[in-house]
């Protein structure tokens, strides 16, 4: 197999993985009826915290846990404001992003310019040594496998478990769910925290594997792209994986553009992921009926138990 092509595919996987994490988390959040626009902020929080922990302890595991915790902590602020204090989800999500950008820049002040060796790759005896397939499928770090596992888990959870059914019900109609005695606020807290953990993981992947170092504002809009991916996936986990890999592919085009003989200024190449996001949103959103059938009906609305 062509070495360039092989490298390209491996980079696509690295570029897609953080998107998968951030988007699958947001998907669960939105299925519970909550729109958290703060994914970008939570990713940055996760990125900086996990990098700091990796730098100080040298432990990849601790770093990943730290990234998740940081994302959850930020999500907790969001959940408290929107779920307990009834603030606007749109405004609070924006605030979370602004806060996350500022806080991560502040925390990361002393980490700029430090390099990290990246996550260890899992070595599967025999399988990893296979030609081509071994490198393509069995030479990744744990988080890559984790990203596939989490999509399958979420899909199973939503469609096959009672808790998943409850979560979908809350997203469909919080009033009806409340009337049945379902604890709407509790379900949404848990979904939001899960979303935070996933976004934090996505951020951790950026700073631990993708770059791997800490750069201010390093998520560069990936949190927002993750939000768009959820729409692209029409709230279905399976389609989300497809979308994330599509975007991963487009975003690494800029890196390999020169090598592939595309002679366009790098800035214009860098616009591609953002322009693609817009294009994809147009293609999906123009089918209003489809969006209305699939979007959680109570998304973005505050819930205050009146009875």
């Amino acid at each position: 197999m062509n070495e360039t092509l092989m490298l390209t595919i491996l980079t696509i996987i690295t570029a897609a993985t953080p998107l998968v994490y951030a988007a699958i988390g947001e998907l669960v959040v939105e299925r519970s009826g909550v729109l958290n626009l703060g994914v970008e902020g939570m990713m940055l929080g996760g990125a900086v915290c996990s990098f700091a922990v990796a730098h100080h302890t040298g432990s990849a595991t601790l770093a990943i846990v730290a990234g998740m915790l940081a994302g959850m902590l930020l999500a907790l602020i969001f959940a408290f404001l929107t779920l307990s204090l009834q603030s606007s989800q749109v405004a609070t999500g924006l605030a979370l992003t602004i806060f996350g950008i500022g806080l991560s820049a502040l925390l990361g002040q002393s980490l700029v310019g430090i390099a990290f060796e990246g996550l260890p790759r899992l070595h599967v005896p025999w399988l990893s040594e296979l030609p081509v397939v071994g490198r393509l499928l069995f030479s990744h770090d744990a988080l890559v496998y984790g990203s596939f596992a989490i999509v399958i888990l979420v899909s199973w959870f939503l469609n096959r478990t009672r808790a998943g059914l409850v979560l979908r019900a809350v997203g469909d109609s919080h009033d009806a769910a409340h009337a049945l005695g379902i604890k709407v606020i509790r379900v949404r807290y848990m979904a939001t925290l899960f979303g935070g953990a996933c976004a934090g993981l996505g951020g951790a992947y950026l700073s631990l594997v993708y770059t791997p170092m800490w750069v201010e504002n390093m998520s560069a809009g990936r949190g927002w792209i993750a939000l768009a991916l959820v729409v692209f996936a029409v709230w279905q986990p399976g389609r989300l994986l497809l979308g994330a890999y599509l975007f991963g592919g487009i975003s690494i085009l800029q890196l390999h553009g020169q090598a592939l003989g595309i002679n366009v200024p790098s800035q214009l190449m860098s616009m591609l992921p953002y322009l693609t996001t817009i294009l994809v949103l147009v293609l999906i959103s123009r089918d209003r009926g489809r969006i209305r059938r699939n979007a959680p009906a109570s998304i973005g609305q505050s819930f205050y138990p009146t009875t």
Partner: protein
Amino acid sequence: MPLRFGQGTLTALQSFCSLMPESISPRAETGNGKPLVEMRGITKAYPGCLANDSIDLQLHSGGVHALLGENGAGKSTLVKVLYGLLASDSGEIYWQGEPVHIASPAVARELGIAMVFQHFSLFDSLNVLENIALGMDVDASDELQQRIIEVSTRYGLPLDPTRSVYSLSVGERQRIEIVRCLLQDPRLLIMDEPTSVLTPAEVSELFVTLKRLADEGLAILYISHKLEEIRQLCDEATILRLGRKVAEADPRVESARSLATLMMGSEIPVSQDSRQGTVGEVLLDVKDLSLSAVDSHDIALRDLHLQVRAGEIVGIAGVAGNGQDELMQALSGERRLQQAQSLSLCGEAIGRQGAGERRRKGLCCVPEERLGHAAVPTLSLSENAFLTAHHRKSLGVAWFMSASRSRQFASEIIKRFNVQCHGPQALASSLSGGNLQKFIVGREILQAPRVLVVSQPTWGVDAGAAMAIHEAIRELADQGAAVLMVSQDLDELMQNCERIGALCAGRLSAFHRVQDITVQQVGLLMGGEELNGVNA
């Protein structure tokens, strides 16, 4: 008009009884022993309103007990306490003589209490099976699916467990709720205003089911403000007024009038049919009106024909979800039509015009939903007056609003229609349903429209306000306007309209003069059937 059907609410209500199957007659009282449930001294206060004031209630197995009262009498609050959705401020509940604390619906279900809500607590995007599983704290298993089919066939409530709820009719949705309750083998079944969304035929089917359930020993608490229904179905009644229990009665021996007197606290004045209007030229002309569905939630309108003349009130009956919303959108201009000719106002084709233009030319509408559609909840009455009347009442100068003229107009509405509020600065959301509806109807009537289209003018409104609204609408017609009234309330239509037709699955029936048809026949029209031998 000697043969005119509706002389008043009561006659119309009485006519309803003929719908009930003859075979059903009130049964002997079965529950002389210990009550299944006893509520004692239930009190619940909301800020600024005492919803339940020390109410007692006893329910017996095998009996159908009516909880009767006007909107706002405290019926819903009381049953929510019983079902664990609300905590009462004081009072006790005894279950088979034992004191119980019903902290949540789960506890209520554990005891054997099941409830069918007025607004169904269903999830549109989930299927029937999933909906039922959610309400029962069990998994959506094949076994459950089997039980659903069993119960639904046994009680004559056909259901397909795999259908998505959004594709079901209102009647089918109610079946889900009932089947869900029955699957839990309840001891007590609470039904909150179950017939308000059903056709007369569906109502009688429901009553057969309920009677059978009571015969099997179930206690049923039946909440309603429809007197005839209660006389037909129930063997005990508790009557609430303004949060207090005012009487216990045996509905089998009381007349509808005496029950109404207990419910309202005084004799209800019967509105006089004093309309002398002469019918004039055609003001509203609907020809071949079709409207496609945007998605599967919508009903497509197909080839509607309809004429309303000056001085005439024409009624459109129908069960909710048969295209009423779409018809209102098509007439008001919220959705423009394909063909300008499909809709004419005083001879001018206006089908391609928007809502603002149509209103300017004299077509005013009152949509069903008060808050969020007819009025903006977070704005004052002044601003809500400006909302639709700014052009016809010149409440602005060029691009600018005139606050003083809006206030003046709002004050005029408040005064003329006796709207109870803190004045024109009060927020729309602070008004009671009846008062807000008076304000909204008044706002359109005072604009002196040539044509008024009004949907559900008295939905969820107390009797006093309902009468005032009906009178105002008739007066408008007497002055030469054409009125089209869309309603699910047959009594309302029979009482106020000259001609009546029905909307079923997006199609309009032929229209008949009310003196030529009976309520049962309107029921047939609502079911999509045509009448033979009746002049259209």
